[in-house]
């Protein structure tokens, strides 16, 4: 498939036309951290506030009806985007919150037959590749419940090592929490054997899809997992809105982490019972404008085509991988080919600390991420303190890849390495 028409797409993202240091054109390659937003998303939020703002699901007036329609309409789009049911979509503030919600669904105070009952006789399986957002909530659950935290390691290619899943995922495993695509190495997880093993032993699977849903077609039915989450802001949507998808039979049984307004079936001074999902998990007046913005963002991506976005990124990534390997002293973390890899490319440059790489690139208008990318266990395994990461999206161009590669060469000149 060919490249996208970035001339057209970039007109939708005015920020990409701004200049940065020394009047340099912005080259935004920090998409794994957050994406830029097209005008339609800003307009959708603004339109909500200008014309329909009221508390959804509350009030007997027209605005409340319209706000409810807009909010629930967004839920339908979000569901459709991953081929799910609306009732299985929970709006959270972020992927971080989503994962916490699921981790707090488990407890050792439940009855033993409950699917969310966990105790010291159980284990929780994560991987060395996880973002802290998909690690710390599980560490905490292990602490609260006495369950054991165990983890899958990584291969030489910085992929999840699945060679020992049969022993690691066993009949004591309650949940396997795993990333779909690494925000550091770009590795795309080979899910099938992991999910198959989890099914064999009756463990649930939570997929951190922060780096996959914005970049490739995702269908929850094909993935066969139990929970999936991502953040709207990485998918050209607003900040402050995340998605948690869960199987309805599990959402029905899962306890809410946050309680309060509009999530009850019945309440007295002493106790309450919960409404059905998704309401049960959306206590308080929800992030309506942000949800509406996310719905518009996903419509925007769908119109362009997720398969086309994926192919576009592959062309850019292939070019960047080849170019980086031509620069002496550059070491790419993980796969050096397109095989099982997405758009995030982390690398080191011999003799220059990543912060200094990023600083010089910044001087050329190039925005990259430097540091540990909230993945300390992976960094520890790789024996690195930091890397430089470039990550691409639908609006990036081959010319920007060239500017980036040239920037890396300039870093070498500046630091005389």
């Amino acid at each position: 498939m060919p490249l996208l028409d970035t001339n057209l797409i970039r007109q939708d993202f005015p920020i990409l036309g701004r200049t940065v240091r020394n009047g340099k054109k912005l080259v935004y390659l920090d998409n794994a951290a957050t994406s830029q937003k097209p005008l339609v998303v800003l307009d959708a939020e603004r339109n909500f506030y200008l014309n329909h703002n009221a508390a959804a699901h509350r009030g007997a007036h027209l605005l409340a009806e319209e706000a409810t329609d807009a909010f629930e309409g967004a839920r339908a789009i979000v569901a459709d985007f991953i081929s799910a049911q609306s009732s299985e979509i929970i709006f959270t503030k972020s992927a971080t919150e989503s994962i916490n919600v699921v981790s707090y669904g488990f407890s050792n105070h439940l009855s033993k037959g409950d699917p969310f009952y966990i105790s010291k006789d159980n284990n929780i399986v994560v991987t060395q590749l996880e973002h802290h957002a998909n690690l710390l909530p599980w560490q905490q659950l292990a602490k609260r419940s006495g369950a054991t935290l165990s983890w899958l390691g990584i291969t030489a290619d910085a992929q999840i090592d699945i060679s020992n899943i049969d022993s690691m995922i066993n009949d004591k495993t309650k949940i396997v929490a795993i990333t779909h695509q690494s925000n550091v190495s770009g590795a795309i997880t080979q899910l099938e054997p992991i999910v198959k093993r989890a099914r064999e032993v009756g463990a649930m699977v939570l997929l951190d899809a922060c780096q996959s849903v914005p970049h490739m077609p995702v269908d929850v039915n094909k993935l066969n997992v139990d929970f999936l989450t991502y953040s709207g802001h990485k998918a050209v949507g607003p900040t402050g809105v995340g998605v948690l998808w869960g199987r309805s039979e599990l959402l029905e049984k899962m306890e809410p982490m946050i309680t309060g307004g509009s999530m009850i079936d019945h309440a007295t001074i002493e106790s309450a019972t919960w409404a059905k999902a998704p309401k049960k998990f959306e206590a308080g007046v929800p992030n309506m404008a942000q949800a509406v913005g996310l719905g518009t963002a996903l419509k925007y991506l769908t119109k362009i085509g997720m398969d086309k976005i994926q192919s576009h990124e592959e062309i850019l990534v292939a070019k960047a991988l080849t170019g980086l390997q031509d620069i002496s002293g550059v070491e790419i973390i993980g796969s050096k080919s397109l095989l099982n890899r997405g758009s995030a490319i982390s690398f080191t440059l011999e003799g220059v600390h990543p912060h200094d790489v990023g600083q010089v690139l910044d001087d050329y208008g190039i925005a990259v991420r430097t540091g540990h990318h909230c993945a300390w266990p992976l960094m520890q395994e790789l024996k690195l303190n930091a890397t430089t990461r470039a990550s691409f999206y639908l609006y990036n161009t081959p010319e920007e890849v060239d500017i980036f590669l040239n920037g890396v060469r300039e870093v070498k000149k500046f630091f005389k390495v």
Partner: protein
Amino acid sequence: MGLESLYQEIILDHYKRPKNKALQDKYSVEVHHNNPSCGDEITLRVQVENQIIKQLTWDGVGCSISQASSSVMSELTQGASIEKALELEVSFLELMQGKGQVEADEQELADAVAFSGVARYPARVKCALLSWMALKDALLRAGGSK
């Protein structure tokens, strides 16, 4: 005002050839500080006798700014009184937090004035301050007073 103001020659020199970067065996206080947002780390050892820094050495990992700053700090405070070293720390902190508006005192800060340019890059200020924060911590533990 570009990269050259940030990465002055003195900084690059200290980065390539850091001073006092080998931990001494004999010390009164050892502290370990890190920058959780970027992963930079420093271990600092100080030998204090009669309120005087007899020896100060360090080891660590990090970017050129944090490494050079540690090196310059170690030179400046070697042999100084705790009181004097803490005064230096205050001056350096003021310079770093001055957003580029504070004039550096060359007399007092010597090589450390090379970091003036860092103050214009808010994201890098914490790199320059890492070793100085470690120093302050170590000296207060060694009996200095604020």
